[in-house]
Structures are given as structure tokens and as C-alpha cells.
């Protein structure tokens, strides 16, 4: 459904995406995971016909994005990063306008159907300017769904939503993704893992790794950053901790605590605890903190990551 081949985009001298190659099958939900500036939005804008690539090709729903841009746009639903809404329109007017642009025969009926799909039926006649952030996000999704597209491209669909709405949005997307191809972008690893059939991790314009959530999970399992706190003097603590097998990136913090990481599949915590108690420290706290996205990239691309070891 989506085939991307060597896609490259330069903004002046800055290369935003560099030789991307990937594909997405029908009925597949593919997650685009990456930190700020990774090139997610740029890729999506190229696939939706908003702008041309500097190099490379792509086909969406069987049509070339450059040669047959209008055919591609007819078959793609797109939720841009900044949700494109007209504040002076009501929800119904807005969707009718979008339906008309898509040459849908009964615009009013379709608009109502779509509003129902995103739970906004009661607000059909409210002005969009009165909508909350979450409602605006759902309006944006409704606009992308109005023509029942074969391919959906969603740029950070859950950003700015409260936890309950995030869950709701994810449910809607999974429902849509049953029979359609969905490409969505996110910063959140757990989100990509929950919704997607496959995750592409992208950083600085390049695909770092590509895998199913299960495999990613097993490559990451246990890889964690831990904060350690002892009563009183913590002199020499970091030295002791760093000698434990599997521990790395040990850092003494100004407040006396010590942070360290251990790699996937080598949970060093029991050994660390044993070591410092034997050394006479009084252990107050040992707490795992999530890895940042940057750290996850490092983790996933380490040469000795377990996921790669097996191959």
C-alpha cells in the first residue's frame, strides 16, 4: 500500500530525511517513532503530496506520489501535525466542505456518519472555535476519514490529549486499522508498541531499526536506568557500583544519589544491592526510571544488544 524507496529531502543545506526505504501492507498499522526533528512530518508531507522529495520515489495505494499526485491524494486521509481546522465553521459545515472537496455524493449524511465515528455528534452544530484540544484532534481525524481512504497518515494523533482521550484515540485508530493501512507518528515508545503492527524507529532522517513491537520489547526488556540512594555519605559508592557486571553509564549526582544503566536481559539490580550492602552502605532507595527516546535508540543500536546477538 505504501512503498518508499530512497526518499530524501533537503531543506536548503539541511538534510531532513536521508534515503528512507520502507513499506506498509494493506491492513497494517505502522508506527513512525522518533524524537523531535527526526523527519517524521517531512516524510508524511511527501507521502501526502504536500511537497515533493529531493530524491527517491514512493507509491501510495499503487500510484506514484510525483506522477499521480492527485490519485494519491484521493486515496489518502491525512491528519497533519497542526490540526487544520476552520474556526469560523461548525463541525458539520467543516466536514461538509471537506466532503464536497472529495466529491462525496451525500455530504450531509457522510458528515454525520463521520462525526459519529469520532464521538462528536452532539457538537455537530457547534463552532469549531469552541472545541477543546481533544475535540479538535478528533475533528482532524474525522476530516481524514471523511472519504473512507485506503491509506491513513496521522501525524502525532495523540499529542496534547489527556490520558482518557489518548486511550480513546488509540482505540479508534486500532479499529480503523483493521482493514486499512495506517502510518502514524509518535514520540512515545509505549504508544507505538500498543497500537502498531510494526514500528520504524527514525532518528536524524534515517531509519535506525524496524521491527514488530514484540521483538522491540524483547530487545529492550530490562534495559533500564536506575537511581540509587543511600543514607549518609555516598563516597566511593559509584566506584563500587560500576564494578558490578552488566552495569554501565554510572553517574554521581550532586545530591549524593547515583544513577546507572544496565543493558537488556542483564538485570544487575540484585547484584548491585548485594554489593553495596556488603560494603556497609544503608540502602534507602533503588528506583527504575524510564529510558528517554534517545537512550532507547542507543540501546537498540548497540552492537551487543540481545536482539542482534541472536542473529
Amino acid at each position: 500500500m505504501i512503498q518508499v524507496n530512497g526518499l530524501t529531502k533537503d531543506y536548503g543545506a539541511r538534510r531532513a530525511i536521508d534515503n528512507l526505504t520502507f513499506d506498509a501492507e494493506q491492513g497494517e498499522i505502522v508506527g513512525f517513532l522518533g524524537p523531535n526533528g527526526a523527519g517524521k512530518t517531512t516524510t508524511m508531507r511527501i507521502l501526502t503530496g504536500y511537497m515533493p522529495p529531493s530524491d527517491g520515489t514512493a507509491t501510495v495505494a499503487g500510484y506514484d506520489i510525483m506522477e499521480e499526485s492527485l490519485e494519491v491524494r484521493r486515496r489518502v486521509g491525512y491528519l497533519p501535525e497542526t490540526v487544520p481546522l476552520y474556526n469560523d465553521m461548525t463541525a458539520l459545515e467543516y466536514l461538509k466542505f471537506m466532503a464536497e472537496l472529495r466529491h462525496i455524493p451525500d455530504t450531509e449524511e457522510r458528515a454525520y456518519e463521520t462525526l459519529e465515528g469520532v464521538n462528536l455528534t452532539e457538537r455537530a452544530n457547534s463552532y469549531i472555535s469552541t472545541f477543546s484540544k481533544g475535540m479538535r484532534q478528533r475533528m482532524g481525524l474525522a476530516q481524514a476519514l471523511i472519504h473512507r481512504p485506503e491509506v491513513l497518515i496521522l501525524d502525532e494523533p495523540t499529542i496534547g490529549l489527556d490520558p482518557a482521550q489518548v486511550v480513546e484515540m488509540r482505540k479508534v485508530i486500532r479499529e480503523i486499522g483493521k482493514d486499512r493501512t495506517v502510518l502514524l507518528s509518535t514520540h512515545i515508545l509505549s504508544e507505538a508498541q500498543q497500537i502498531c503492527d510494526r514500528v520504524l524507529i527514525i532518528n536524524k532522517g534515517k531509519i535506525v531499526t524496524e521491527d514488530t513491537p514484540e521483538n522491540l520489547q524483547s530487545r529492550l526488556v530490562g534495559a533500564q536506568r536506575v537511581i540509587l540512594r543511600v543514607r549518609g555519605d555516598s563516597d566511593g559508592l559509584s566506584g563500587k557500583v560500576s564494578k558490578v557486571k552488566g552495569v554501565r553509564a554510572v553517574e554521581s549526582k550532586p545530591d549524593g544519589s547515583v544513577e546507572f544503566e544496565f543493558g537488556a536481559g542483564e538485570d544487575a539490580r540484585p547484584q548491585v544491592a548485594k554489593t553495596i550492602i556488603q560494603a556497609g552502605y544503608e540502602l534507602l532507595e533503588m528506583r527504575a526510571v524510564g529510558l528517554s527516546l534517545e537512550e532507547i535508540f542507543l540501546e537498540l543500536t548497540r552492537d551487543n544488544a540481545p536482539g542482534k546477538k541472536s542473529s
Partner: protein
Amino acid sequence: MRNIWTIAKREYNHYFISPIAYVVAFIILFTEGIYFTYIISFYSQQALFGGMQAPDITPINWLFVFLLVFTTPAITMRSLSDEARTGTLELLLTAPIRDYELIIGKWLGGLLFVLTILAVTLVYAIIMNSLVTPGIDQQLMISSYLGVILAAAALLALGVGISAIFTNQIAAFFATFGLFFILWFMMGIFGNLVQGSGAQVFQYLNISAHFSDALNTGSIKLSDLVYFLSLIALGLFTGTTAVEIRRWR
């Protein structure tokens, strides 16, 4: 065609919730109303003293175009620049419509708005027609209104074209107004300053020369029609190109 109409309808409706559009409509209709009252009283006084001249609609239509030179920049400034600012341009540029359909739709919506105001001023023509026997000069009236419509279409096309270049609507306003000021006021002055073919070029570019001294005097000449149609084409082409350049950046 259908896409153009969808965009034009949206644009047209948008004017009816826009304060600026109401201000523009008010300025035009109010000024025209005062001017019309003045003309009628002037000619009726003349008639009392045996004056034979019958009034016609051309001063009213001249004023309409004159006011458009100042107000069109305000009508068109947000046309595309606002879409770019709020991000809805991304919606339109990823919808299955061609760039020129978007620009023509925007222009058509603006033109229909101005024609709506113009339709209101038809009242003056009707009143005048009833006051004068045997009625006002039909051919002059047709030529004059054709001139107004062409001039409005040309100004709006240039305004929409410039609006497509800018993301900031104030910048779009001043660029448009600057261009109209040059085309309406400065060309005649430049034309008087230089001699020979240079003067002819300036005279040819002068909007006033093709409206006030031509169509609005009852003479329908091909060259004047070509002039306005060229301006319309130039404006729409500029707009379409600006959108395309935006994509490539």
C-alpha cells in the same frame, strides 16, 4: 470546475462573517450613497435653471472602482496568507484539487463578494433611470458596468496572487496596495514625465486609462478588454506559481 466552485463558495461565505468585509461594504455603499445624492441634487438644480444635460451612472461607477483600489487589498489580504498561517493550507494542498483550482476559487469567491456590493449599487442606476426621461443611456451603462466588473476582477486577481506569496496578511495588504497605487496613480504621472514610447508604456499600464477614459465613457475596445484579461491572468498565474514554490521549499 466543481472544485473551483467549492472553494469559491467557502470563500464567499467567509466574507459574511468577516468584520473587514463589512467595513469595506459599508465604506463603498456609504460613500456612493452620498455621492449619488449629491449628483441627483446637482442635476435637478441644473434642470430647474434650464440645463439640458442628463445625469448618467458613470461617476458612480468611477467612484466604485476608485474605492476598490483602496479596499481590495483588505479584501484579498487574508485570502491565502491566512490559510498558510493557520495551517489549513496543508489541508487544501493535500486535498485532491489542483493548485490553480484553489487560486481561481479564491479569486472567484472574492469577485462574487464585490459583485454582491455592486449589485446593491444597481439601485442607484434604477432610481436614476426613473428620474430621467427617456431613461439613461443604455449602451453607456452596459459599457460602464463591464468596465467595473473587469477592473474589480483584475484587482482581485492581483490581490489573491500577492496574498499567496505572503504568510503575513499585513505584508500582503501593503504589497497589494503599493501595486495598485502605482497602477492607478503613478502611471499617469510617470507618463507625463517622459516622452515617446516610454510614455506609451506607462499609459498602457495605467488602470485609469483603460477604465476612466475608455470603458467608463461608453467605448468598448478590444485593447482595453485584453488589458484587463491580461491582468487577471497575471494575478492568477502569480498565485498558482507562489503556491507551487511553497511546495518546493
